[in-house]
């Protein structure tokens, strides 16, 4: 009886023993945290070369007399002709600690691999591992991922994970690259839709045409210095294979037209309407997303878009007084609308003719027109997108001039009493 009386009270203390993680207990110093995983084509068919960039976690602390001073910031390990899952044990031949892929900040996939092999197979091979996270960003690199990882030594960020974390914020800020992660890719793949991946490279080539600004893809920007890695533009993956690339500006407008652009404002430059060499720099604000109306009643789907723009004109090098003169201002507004309209329609044309893919993800809006899934599948929006009739209205809602009003620096003559 005494045992029974105390059993009720002693049992919880016995259960406390199991709070430390049972067989899965591991010390933090015993773990090798992989920051980046790079995948390349292996020399054998069906195999990949996996590159792991392992971060030195002890360098993350700032302490006096740091025992890890002489250690490198990160280690790169490349294992050839394996599969992504086997790497976790194979790498322990050359790494002391247990490989842990739950803190991976980015997956890098080389373009050669993306163009050749079904990307879904590669990513799905990794997704069954419970340690892998679905919101990891995925980047497609122009050269081999191994080379990219080797050359990617950012100047300010000593620890490589900080590079990707801060870069994620910049991707969200500028909109020059899409935000691609595993979850959204698998979702788009299940929908049968194309998906845009971030495009990056460390090899810089000469720009084909000068003066393009961010209307370039990675590697062709006219830039010198900065970090070795250049990330701009997007790679389009449709049905698992890479079919093309988009420049930075095209990516931004693609995201805008699909209501996927999450940033508040971005800078666009227009050629001056009258004085051709000059460029007017504007900041365009995304106060309201474009309204998309999909009409599926006729033989061809009709897609009507209304894109409201809030423009802040920030530099007028020609010194034409667009500020005070309302007639000139209206002329500028119409000109901006026309230029944007032309840019958008060129992009839609390219999507329909060259790539034949719904890169704007307008199928999401078509889905709300159907009541059941079988009706939606029978309609097959993907195939009908190529014949769709797209009408775009660009509406300039407001035009603003930044924090200075007059373009000239002399006062106009006073009107009135004199």
């Amino acid at each position, binding site marked *: 009886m005494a045992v029974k009386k105390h059993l*009720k009270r002693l*049992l*919880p203390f016995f*259960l406390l023993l*199991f709070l430390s*993680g*049972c*067989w*899965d207990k591991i010390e933090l110093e015993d773990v090798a945290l992989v920051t980046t995983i790079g995948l390349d084509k292996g020399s054998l068919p069906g195999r990949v070369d996996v590159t792991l960039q392992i971060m030195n976690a002890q360098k993350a602390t700032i302490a006096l007399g740091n025992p890890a001073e002489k250690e490198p910031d990160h280690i790169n390990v490349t294992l050839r002709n394996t599969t992504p899952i086997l790497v976790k044990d194979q790498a322990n031949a050359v790494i002391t600690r247990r490989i842990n892929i*739950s*803190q991976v900040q980015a997956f890098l996939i080389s373009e050669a691999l993306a163009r050749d092999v079904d990307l879904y197979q590669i990513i799905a091979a990794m997704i069954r591992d*419970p*340690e892998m*996270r*679905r*919101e990891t960003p995925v980047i497609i690199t122009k050269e081999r991922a191994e080379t990219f990882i080797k050359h990617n030594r950012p100047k300010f960020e000593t620890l490589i994970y900080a590079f990707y*974390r801060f870069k994620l*914020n910049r991707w969200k800020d500028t909109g020059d690259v899409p935000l691609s992660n595993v*979850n*959204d890719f*698998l*979702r*788009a*793949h*299940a*929908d049968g839709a194309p998906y845009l991946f971030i495009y990056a490279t460390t090899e810089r080539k000469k720009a084909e045409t000068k003066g393009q600004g961010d209307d370039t893809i990675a590697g062709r920007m006219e830039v010198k210095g900065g970090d070795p890695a250049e990330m701009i533009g997007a790679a389009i993956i449709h049905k698992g294979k890479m079919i093309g690339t988009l420049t930075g500006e095209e990516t931004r407008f693609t995201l805008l037209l699909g209501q996927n652009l*999450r940033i508040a404002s971005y800078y666009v430059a227009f050629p001056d309407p009258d004085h051709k060499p000059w460029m007017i720099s504007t900041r365009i604000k995304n106060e309201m997303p474009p309204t998309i109306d999909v009409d599926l009643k006729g033989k061809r789907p009709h897609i009507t878009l209304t894109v409201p723009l809030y423009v802040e004109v920030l530099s007028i090098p020609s010194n034409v007084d667009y500020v005070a003169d309302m007639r000139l201002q209206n002329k500028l507004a119409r000109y901006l609308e026309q230029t944007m309209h032309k840019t958008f329609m060129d992009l839609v044309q390219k999507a329909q003719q060259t790539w034949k893919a719904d890169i704007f993800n307008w199928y*999401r*809006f078509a*889905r*709300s027109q*159907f*009541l*059941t*899934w*079988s*009706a*939606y599948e029978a309609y097959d929006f993907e195939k009908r997108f190529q014949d769709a009739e797209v009408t775009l209205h660009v509406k300039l809602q407001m035009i603003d001039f930044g924090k200075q009003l007059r373009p000239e620096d002399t006062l106009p003559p006073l009107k009135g009493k004199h």
Partner: protein
Amino acid sequence: MKFMKYSTASAQDVFRQNNPSTNDRIGLRELIAIDFFLLGVKGTDLTASFFFQFAGSAAWLLPLLIFIFLLPIIFLVTHLLSQYEGKSLLFISEQLLGRSLTYLAAFVLFVLGMAATVLNMRSYAQMTGIMFYGRTPLIFLYGVILLTTAYVAYRGLEAIGRVASLLLPYAVFSFVLLYFGVYDMMDYRAIFPLFGQGWKMISETILHLGFVVDIFYFALFASMLKGGSRTYKHGTLIGVGIAGVGTMGLIFMYTDVFGYPGVNQVLFHYQQITRIAHYGQFINHIEAAFLGTWILATVVHFALYLYTMVYLLHYLVRSEDMFRLFIPVTAAVFFAGLYPYRSEKLFFIYREWIVWILTATVYPYFLLLVLLARIKGGKKRGRKKTS
């Protein structure tokens, strides 16, 4: 005590004598919490996969549909309980069906309940093992969860009720927190087309109402409710309502984050969502915090299952002390759970069979009781008029 007649009335006294506490009844708040944990936790396991199978992109509407189908049954059962105020279901069925048929019914309930308990517990243990404890042997994990659950259940129904009512705000809070954590990954357009698989939804819901049969198992304890059948009605409606809204929200989250049909590729929706949740730039990868509340909710959920099984066995075997039966029941659940089930069969095929069988037996049993109560009540009324 051995010379006492073994009827359910005296078994209650024996129960109270061996488990004395000042307050051995559970009230409305505890019932609401218990119903929430019975049904709400089901939104975090593979029931969500079943819902996606039945209804496609409209899976988030299924809890609403189930609630609509449950409403008449809840009202009928409450009416039945109110006719025999203050008595438990087994007593009522003894009055209406006779002792031997009630024994048969209790036996069937017991066997089905044990099967459901073993399957569900084993699948939760496997879920935890696969997602979080990759190297721990499954037997051990299952054993620890079972031990904890049995301990909570051993303390008695009031203890479970108190734990549930303490835990309820935290569980609801963690659901809400989860929503804010995945807010920027959600695209609400994935719930279209609005009616998913169409009319198939309704027929599949009716066939699979066995998913929510737990709240009717609770009618076994109706004699321990403060306030009787009114408490049962209010508690069940409010508890199932909160659980339904919670489950609807969770399934809405799953559809929006994973996309439809992408959601069919994900096995453990809740665990994957907690891995995605992030708050701002620095607070991310916090799935262990959600695992904490989830495990607590799971323990309450299964503690109720175990307690119900022990109660039924106590009725069937007519033992002296109900709490001594915990060891055989726990051991039976442990050994039955050791069988090496294949994942696909465990999670989907056997579960679906149990649900079908539950739908086919428990609901007709209740409806039969209600029917008999109407007939006998009519007879009673008839007799009164003549006298």
